[in-house]
């Protein structure tokens, strides 16, 4: 790696890697259809469930029905991007051993995985447009002011990086053990619940909320979503985004350390 670092950095190969990833994802048309079909079914379900709950109980003041429907719909759409394991390629290449040849290529290997993952995410991100179109057939989604939208976009991007490093750490553990599929599924399920995608964290009982806010998952879904629906007001933007940034620094550091240790292992084993 030290050799590649000293070479003059060129961006073009990585743009090409991202483009390849987009083309690869586009060939799995079946996944696209089920993804969109799933979204429509889930939007119907969330509308029905929240409507029934609000009809029979006192509505919480900070989240009236239209806000919770907006929250849940935007959460589903964010899931199209955030639930992707964009560093899966790392696991695959460790699994079949081709990681060894990657190290010989004149590229920065982690950056290669980042470019590949970005391409994958961009493709699925483009699906947000038709997905939103279908969702709007079933529910009304509130649109906040431009300033709030901008804050949401920044917070969403920060949340994306938190998710990226979490996935990277999980896939890096494949340097030591290849049985990580179950762990990944567990983390995905926990992210959806503890990140506030299924139920807003403001509804969590106090004891549970304390735990949830101490975990990185809230930085992925909850923070941008609560900004979107206005529960987190402008006066708190700086604090919540600083906390997201802190998670990025922590998880990014862990990722770097794990990667270095893992890469050394490959070299040692490869002789």
């Amino acid at each position: 790696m030290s050799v590649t670092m000293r070479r003059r950095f060129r961006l073009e190969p990585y743009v090409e890697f991202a483009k390849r990833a987009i083309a690869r994802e586009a060939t799995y048309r079946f996944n696209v259809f089920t993804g969109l079909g799933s979204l429509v079914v889930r939007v119907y379900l969330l509308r029905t469930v929240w409507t029934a709950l609000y009809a029979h109980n006192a509505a919480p003041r900070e989240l009236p029905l239209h806000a919770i429907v907006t929250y849940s719909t935007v959460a589903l759409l964010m899931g199209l991007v955030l639930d992707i394991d964009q560093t899966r390629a790392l696991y695959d290449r460790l699994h079949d051993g081709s990681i060894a040849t990657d190290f010989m290529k004149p590229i920065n290997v982690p950056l290669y995985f980042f470019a590949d993952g970005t391409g994958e995410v961009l493709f699925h991100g483009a699906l947000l447009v038709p997905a939103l179109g279908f969702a709007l057939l079933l529910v009304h989604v509130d649109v906040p002011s431009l300033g709030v939208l901008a804050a949401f976009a920044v917070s969403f991007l920060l949340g994306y990086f938190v998710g990226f490093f979490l996935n990277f750490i999980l896939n890096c553990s494949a340097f030591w053990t290849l049985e990580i599929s179950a762990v990944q599924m567990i983390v995905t399920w926990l992210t959806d619940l503890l990140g506030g995608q299924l139920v807003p964290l403001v509804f969590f009982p106090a004891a549970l909320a304390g735990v949830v806010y101490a975990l990185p998952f809230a930085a992925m879904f909850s923070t941008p979503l609560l900004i979107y629906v206005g529960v987190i007001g402008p006066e708190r933007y700086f604090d919540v985004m600083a906390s997201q940034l802190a998670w990025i620094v922590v998880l990014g550091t862990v990722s770097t350390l794990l990667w270095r240790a893992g890469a050394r292992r490959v070299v040692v084993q490869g002789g």
Partner: protein
Amino acid sequence: MFGLYRQYWRINVLTTLEYRANFILWSLFTVVYHGSAIAALYIVLHEFPSMNGWTFRDMAFLYALWMLAHALQNTLFSNVDDVPERIREGDFDRVLIRPVDPLFSVIATPGQIFPDELILAASFFALATVYSGVRVDAAFVLLVPLVVAGGALIDLGINLGIATLAFWFVRVDALRWVVLQLEQEFTRYPIVIYSRGVRFLLTFVIPFAFMNYFPAAYFLDKHDGTFLLPPQVGLLSPLIGTALVLAAYAFWRFGLRRYQGVGH
């Protein structure tokens, strides 16, 4: 055939013991999968105490009933789900040349199957029964196994029907996938909350409502008046399950006779 079936379970258990770390992690995932669903219900109903008259205690029982039936089906018949994949890969032809019934051969294909989900489901069901305050009497003890078996048969009947479609269509994943979502996510709530069309679908077309909603309404004594049906219809689950499996089996036999392979 009984001896074969015993061997099948012997291999399953031995395989599971061979991959112990993997088994423990996947069992943990099963706990997280059901645990997060139940936790989400708890959190929501903590904030909103009633869903059309159903409390969290009721809904825990509703979930437990589905979970038990589904886990029973998964443990005994999950191999049926692999039929479309096996047809596509050409591997299905192997079961046709064996001197046992092809469906039996499919069901008894050894893998890494262990009744961990069933044990979890039974434990949670016992817990939810006490927690929900359902009246446990002789009738309850007698009826629950019948209703659970009925629910598992409904689950199997629908899975077998979809798997059989693979004899004609190479890709049935999309359909299976939508039906799976209807089963797993729509059975979490009392079906009274859905629009008429969805209630009709879940009651008369793919009767998942008989896996848990109608029997739970009977045991919990809920009178939602869905389609003007009295709660006692919940006890029809075993009949509906049996009829559905028989129909699916006839369809399977029909498909098997027509089947000519995918041309490998």
